[in-house]
């Protein structure tokens, strides 16, 4: 794509999509979706029972050759998140952790207080923290002060697919911290949602439900890959500014049958004004 890649914690990423591995109808659908999405990272969790039976989930992950980003999904406190992160580090042999501290079991929003506490502790323990957060500037400032080098603000509650439902605030967060890598995580439901946040200058998108719960997850995965690339290019290409007043694209000068005799009879004229 000709531009320098997204770099998180010093690692240059080949794409700007991160893909979740949950809620797919079968391991093979997941494998095909990964191939179609070509994500930079796959998010996973740690659970007591083994992942997918038969061809174990582990082989599937390794064969994908993707960077693994374990999460602390479902953790309701900083302590629980830290303990889970430590297990994840041991299990996946990675310092990366997608830090989730859930503040409410109905809207699954991040718990700003637990999130910051956990971030401080995890950075102290040497983790590279990818915090799932809200668009609250104060929470984000504290996460950065804690040592997070990326922010993962939500577009909308997890699994709702509503897309960016607080667009002005999300854009203001992006513009407020221009140098901080930001991945929109949670609530994206359609390729156009992903394309839109990329146009705002977000650095990437983390998707799960929008792909796994599509009727054709593999086709949806490639649609999102295109959408994210498209939104990024749109952002870099310096889009036109939305106008209030209509402006004809086709030049007015030299319309046939008009009395406008200003146009010289035959002198070739540059059309684009």
């Amino acid at each position, binding site marked *: 794509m000709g531009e320098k890649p997204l770099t998180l914690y010093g690692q240059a990423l080949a794409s700007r999509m991160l893909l*979740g*591995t*949950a*809620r*797919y109808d079968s391991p093979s659908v*997941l494998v095909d979706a990964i191939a179609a999405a070509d994500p930079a990272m796959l*998010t*996973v*969790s*740690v*659970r*007591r*029972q*083994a*992942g*997918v039976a038969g061809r*174990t*989930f*582990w082989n599937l*992950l390794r064969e994908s050759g993707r960077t693994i980003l*374990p*999460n602390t*999904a479902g953790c309701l406190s900083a302590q629980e998140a830290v*303990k889970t992160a*430590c*297990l*994840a*580090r*041991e*299990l*996946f042999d990675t310092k990366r952790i*997608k830090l989730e501290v859930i503040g409410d079991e109905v809207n699954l929003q991040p718990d700003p207080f637990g999130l910051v506490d956990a971030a401080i502790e995890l950075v102290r323990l040497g983790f590279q923290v990818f915090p799932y957060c809200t668009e609250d500037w104060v929470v984000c400032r504290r996460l950065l002060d804690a040592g997070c080098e990326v922010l993962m603000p939500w577009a909308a509650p*997890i*699994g709702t697919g509503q897309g960016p439902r607080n667009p002005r605030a999300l854009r203001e967060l992006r513009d407020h911290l221009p140098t901080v890598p930001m991945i929109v995580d*949670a609530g994206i439901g359609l390729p156009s949602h992903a394309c839109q946040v990329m146009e705002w200058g977000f650095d990437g998108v*983390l998707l*799960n*439900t929008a792909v796994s719960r599509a009727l054709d997850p593999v086709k949806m995965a490639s649609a999102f890959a295109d959408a994210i690339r498209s939104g990024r290019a749109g952002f870099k290409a310096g889009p036109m500014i939305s106008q209030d007043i209509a402006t004809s694209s086709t030049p007015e000068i030299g319309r046939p049958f008009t009395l406008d005799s200003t146009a010289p009879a035959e002198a070739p004229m540059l059309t684009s004004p």
Partner: protein
Amino acid sequence: MFVTVNGQKTSLPELSTLAGLLRQVAPAFPFAVARNEEVVPRESYEQCRLQPGDAIEIVHPAAGG
């Protein structure tokens, strides 16, 4: 003696080590283990003496969003 494994009461011979427990339970590979909420690195399975009432967590890679 009794310990809990993933929240389930499990009986073990006295003076078992974590490695012993793991041989008994034989969890699918790969897994990571915590004892009383502290991660036990793979290298320490053998020396890790279990006490009655220990809470052992054995986790595996699972799907995640």
